[in-house]
């Protein structure tokens, strides 16, 4: 049994363990934490071989002759796998504080679905071909549906409808025919360095195929198929934090990068991506403007995510080796910053029962640690050194300038300003505005310790990634060579 087998087996066994331990909450949470730690350790074991240039592989079922459910670990998937499994540990600590602090119902179902979702996310990360990726892409949608609708209210049901409708609708209408078309034309769906499409394929067909992929991967939240992400915010905050800032949305942009690099190949796309630059640029700006006007904190963060995801799509659309590296790095840096921000939003909700931005005046005095973490996350997303967001933005911006994509450069600069405009007022209000008269009478402190620990860890990670970006860079460097 290889480490790759274990990567899928561990969360499945973990989920079974969680279900069995459902009646004893402490044991159940112990199982979750153990599973998360063991899983991260197992994923780490794959890192050595991948850095040495190997690609551990595993083949399960034969689906069609020559087409199997199969896995192969390459640098980009390794990066995504490390982030998802690593942050799951922190997120589990946070979940314990959040779910108990808010007396949520059906906690066993919550933890079971969470573990299974992680398994699906890792399967996407390590998928060796489009079919496997598509299979687990849909599985991830279905597994996260009960998490999104966790509350069981009418609002949750409506959110779940949008969530499922858009994600499943786009994947069936656009992604599935794209996958089948690739199989029809090339006779393979494997991810191969340099792409698999035949030389001299009709440029019109390439353009249509690219559009089918980009809009079919609804999890990348390219406009106009982004509405599911704000709708998913009805979920408990740990779900928004790990799944709708890291695992699910990153599965989307990861698939985008993967398809661009390993199915099309950068050369085949030359000249075919101008419209994608435009659409992703539009998404970046438009989503930021919506975020600017959103008063609900989680909603603001969600639109910020929509915007930041399009950074990665934009970087992929620039089809330069450097921009692909930037895209890969942004998957990591955005993950740390955004999970921190969601953690703080959940902490504020748990400690102060506040959900709106306009209620946050003076809260920095009550929750100094939380708001410090918030500031770090916000500054990283704006792209200020010495924080992780600066690194990936630098790569994307440089390659846009080098390639002469001035539209992209303009979008990135404008978006930086917009980021500052919707994050900094929150920081300002939290620290410098006085508490409202009503708040004076409702004293509260920081959120429960597990939550605080979790959000400080990811905030520290956001800083650390800036100083230790070299190992990351070395990991994803091979992408630029293909």
């Amino acid at each position, binding site marked *: 049994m290889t480490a790759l087998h274990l990567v899928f087996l561990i969360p499945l066994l973990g989920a079974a363990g969680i279900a069995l331990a459902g009646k004893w909450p402490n044991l159940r949470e112990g199982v979750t934490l153990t599973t998360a730690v063991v899983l991260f350790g197992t994923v780490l074991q794959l890192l050595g071989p991948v850095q040495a240039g190997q690609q551990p592989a595993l083949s399960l079922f034969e689906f069609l002759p020559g087409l199997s459910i199969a896995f192969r670990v390459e640098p980009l998937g390794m990066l995504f796998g490390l982030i998802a499994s690593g942050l799951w540990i922190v997120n589990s600590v946070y979940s314990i504080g959040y779910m108990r602090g808010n007396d949520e119902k059906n906690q066993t179902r919550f933890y079971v679905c969470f573990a299974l979702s992680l398994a699906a996310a890792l399967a996407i990360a390590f998928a060796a071909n489009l079919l496997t990726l598509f299979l687990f892409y849909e599985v991830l949608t*279905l597994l996260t549906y009960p998490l999104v609708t966790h509350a069981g209210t009418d609002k949750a049901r409506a959110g779940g*409808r949008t969530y499922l409708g858009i994600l499943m609708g786009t994947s069936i*209408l656009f992604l599935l025919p794209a996958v089948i078309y690739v199989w029809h034309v090339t006779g393979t769906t494997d991810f191969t360095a340099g792409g698999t499409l035949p030389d001299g394929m009709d440029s019109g067909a390439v353009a249509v195929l690219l559009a089918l992929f980009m809009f079919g991967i609804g999890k990348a939240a390219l406009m106009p198929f982004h509405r599911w992400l704000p709708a998913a915010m009805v979920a408990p905050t740990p779900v928004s934090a790990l799944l709708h800032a890291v695992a699910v949305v990153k599965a989307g942009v990861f698939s985008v990068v993967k398809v661009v690099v390993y199915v099309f190949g950068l050369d085949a796309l030359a000249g075919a991506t101008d419209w994608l630059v435009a659409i992703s640029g539009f998404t970046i700006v438009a989503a930021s403007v919506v975020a600017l006007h959103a008063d609900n904190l989680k909603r603001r963060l969600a639109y910020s995510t929509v915007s930041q995801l399009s950074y990665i799509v934009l970087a992929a659309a620039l089809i330069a080796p450097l921009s692909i590296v930037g895209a890969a790095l942004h998957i990591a840096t955005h993950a740390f910053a955004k999970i921190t921000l969601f953690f703080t939003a959940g902490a504020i909700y748990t400690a102060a029962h506040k959900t709106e931005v306009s209620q946050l005046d003076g809260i920095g005095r009550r929750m100094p640690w939380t708001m410090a973490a918030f500031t770090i996350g916000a500054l990283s997303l704006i792209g200020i050194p010495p924080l992780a967001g600066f690194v990936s933005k630098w790569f994307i911006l440089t390659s846009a300038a080098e390639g002469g994509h001035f539209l992209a450069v303009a979008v990135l600069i404008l978006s930086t300003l917009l980021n500052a405009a919707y994050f900094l007022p929150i920081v300002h209000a939290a620290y410098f505005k006085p508490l409202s008269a009503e708040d004076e009478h409702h004293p509260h402190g920081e959120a429960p310790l597990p939550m605080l620990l979790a959000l400080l860890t990811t905030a520290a990670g956001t800083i650390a990634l800036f100083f230790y970006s070299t190992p990351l860079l070395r990991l994803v460097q091979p992408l630029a060579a293909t």
Partner: protein
Amino acid sequence: MGLTAHLPALQVVLPLLAAPLAVLLRHGGFAFGLVTACAWAAFAAAIGLWLQVGALEGGTISYHIGNWAPPWGIEYRVDRLTSFVLLLVSGTAAIVLPWSRASIEREIPADLHYLYFAMFGLCLAGLLGITITGDAFNIFVFLEISSLSTYVLIALGRDRRALAASYRYLIMGTIGATFFVIGIGFLYLMTGTLNLADMAERLRGVENSPPVLAALAFITVGVSLKLALFPLHQWLPNAYTYAPSAVTAFLAATATKVSVYVLIRFWFSVFGESLIFEKLPLPQILLLLSLAAMFAASFTAIFQDNLKRLFAYSSVGQIGYITLGMSFDSVNGLDAAILHLFNHGITKAAIFLLIGGMVIGLARPGAVLPAPTFDRLAGLSQRMPLTCFGIVIAGLSLIGVPGTAGFISKWHLILAAMEKGQFWIVGAILLSSLLAIAYVWRFVEVVYFKPAPEGATKQEAPLSMLIPAWLLVIGTIWFGLDTSFTVGTATEAAMQLVKIGK
């Protein structure tokens, strides 16, 4: 000659003998044991035949009844497709029969139980006979055997509307059978033979004569009635809704599928592709009717209040995918049709079995079983978690979510459409899948989100019903991941058919 050489005859004779014996026994328990044993024996025979045909590599088994050589005697003929359909029919019967013991306790008066089992045996024998025989008139005979027993089975339902539904099916089914036998008459007139293989030989050269074209029309319309091709499906929703649950499950998985098989057999093996696909606009007509079924029937399904009726309309829509595959005139298209015939069969059987269990769980002990209408299903997932979850998984297969059997057939169907360069059909297939999401999710939202009525306690269907149903549910996932059996057999069958037709 050992027993294995007689498997083709045993396949039909065992259930056929079980039926009159069940009537003579006049005892529900004995009849149950006898018919179930025979169904399992038939299943074993089907597996044996599947293995035998597989070993022949593209050949067919020809079995001469009473040692009279064809074309004078009746021939049983087993090729890849035959063995695949035999497996589906006998396998479904083997699973539904043990399941139905607990179900008919509540649905059929005890003194009629023996009749239920006798009719089930007859119906099974008829369906297997239609599939295995290589003789045109023999098909008609078995068609009538299976139809007549089906009318009785539907009428056994406790709901009085079952009588009307059965009567309606009787009228429509009889018209279909009459059309079919008229078509056979014309063919006999022109060829002087009833053996299908012989008939195909002798038709070469006279294909364009009016009686042959008339025969083709009569047979196609007659069989289309039986397979519920849109808009000839009017009998199906009521029949499925009011029949006893076990009958619905068995019919949904087998009766329409066997009729599809007959159509494939006549189109590809008897008349030959050149006549059907080049000289006549039949594929175009079938294509349009299939698309109409996929959209109209699936759309109607969304607005049904009775769960059984909802999935009955879904069946009409899904049959559209099968006939769509047939209309492509390619190995891949036929492959997709044959695959979906099997995959949809097990998916629908699973759903109707689970609904059957659900109905029993919904009823108070001893009371008449209620109809599974949506207002009774609120919050049901808490009372019957396994039943509800099973229906959701099978529902995902209807949508065509990857990892389920339905995805495999959809993949092949889309591939076949692409191969033809018909990208608008690809779009139509995908759009109609969205309708399936709508009707499946209607169920999900009611059972998972609507609050359960006060005082409802957890009460699953009995295990004797859950286990067979879940076997099928696991089957829908299994055949969605490991497809070597289904795709392997369907592809070989399609290649064999297209080779015969050429």
